[in-house]
């Protein structure tokens, strides 16, 4: 999976940075990150996860955070080292793009 990452893939990776999450948790976190601008549907979410698993950017988690409180049918996903590197590279690329936009006075200083 080459850079640039698509917005859903980038935000899914970002959602998994802090902790392992199940599908619905990822969906909620992506909506939170983007302030509702990106609402992933189940088809898009699991299509992306399928490709990210194949590219080894994410992996299925063997352990459940709290099996007693959680639905056994849920699968949890975690970020791999490769996924973290890809996310970091993409974040750097986006930061450079934002800097370039600022230099051209397209964005106010200190604001995205």
């Amino acid at each position, binding site marked *: 999976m080459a850079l640039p990452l698509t917005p859903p893939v980038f935000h899914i990776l970002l959602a998994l940075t802090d902790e392992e999450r*199940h*599908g*619905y948790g990822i*969906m909620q976190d992506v909506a939170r990150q983007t302030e509702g601008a990106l*609402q*992933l*549907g*189940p*088809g*898009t*979410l*699991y*299509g992306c*996860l*399928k490709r990210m698993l194949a590219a080894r950017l994410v992996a299925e988690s063997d352990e459940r955070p709290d099996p007693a409180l959680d*639905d056994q*049918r*849920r*699968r949890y996903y975690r970020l791999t080292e490769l996924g973290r590197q890809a996310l970091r590279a993409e974040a750097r690329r986006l930061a450079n793009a934002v800097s370039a936009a600022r230099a051209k006075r397209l964005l106010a200083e200190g604001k995205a």
Partner: protein
Amino acid sequence: MARSLVTRWLCRVYRVLLRAYPADFRRRYGAEMAQVFADRCGEVAQTQGIGGLLRLGLDSGADWLISTIREGMDSMGATSQFAGNGVPVFGTVESSGPSRSALIHGGFLSLAFFSALVFAIGHGGSPRHWVLVGSHHPSRSHLLPVQSTATASTELTTEVQVRPFPDERPISPYFRLLAALAALDANHDGILSASEIANAPSALMKLDKNGDGKLSPEECGLRLPEGLNLDPQVLKLAFMRFHPVLAALDGDHDGEISWSEIRAAPQALKTLDRNGDGQLTVDEVLPDPGGQR
């Protein structure tokens, strides 16, 4: 109450829609997707009510449409990647064969479809026209001699009849090229029937584009070529005399079909009916280049 009803209904529809995904994808992620959708429905029902649920249904429908196409194409790509060396292969979206129940349903559907088709062919509204296209009668006079010991033990008496396709004879392009004929042949079957001959005045009046009550050669279908060093009047007269239908209609041969000639069109057209069957076929209206008509 209404919210839970809509939620249940949406979840049920979504579970049905999941069947559109490729089998591998559905087996791996189908249950999770259904659960995620149900979770999302529950949240939206609590926070946004029925309106939010309906919006979620629409958004999820669009997501379903796009992702089924993408996963289907992915699945086909995964199948064909093993072809190698540039040889084209055929791929299927499903990696597994159809289930037995699907085969049984498909069989019944096919049977019903072909039964309906056979019934429609057998009891269709169009008249049947059978044409003899081949026959064999017990006669040896038309057989070529062959060096063979294999002879038929019995004489064959077989007639083969097939229904012509299309039903009607091919329509002469002449009926389409000449505007006057095209107007007269109201049902475009390439024959001027008795009723079309009787209705000739009204059909011809439709060609009167300038509304002067008469038909010029141009209104009858003449297209004068540009850059021709000939007197247009001579060409117009030649055009009206060349085509038998126009020559018959233009009783006074002045190069135009006047109002009185339009009204007398049925009688004029009947003069072309050489075999007296009450209708005009293409052989009766085609120009005779040799001037034998």
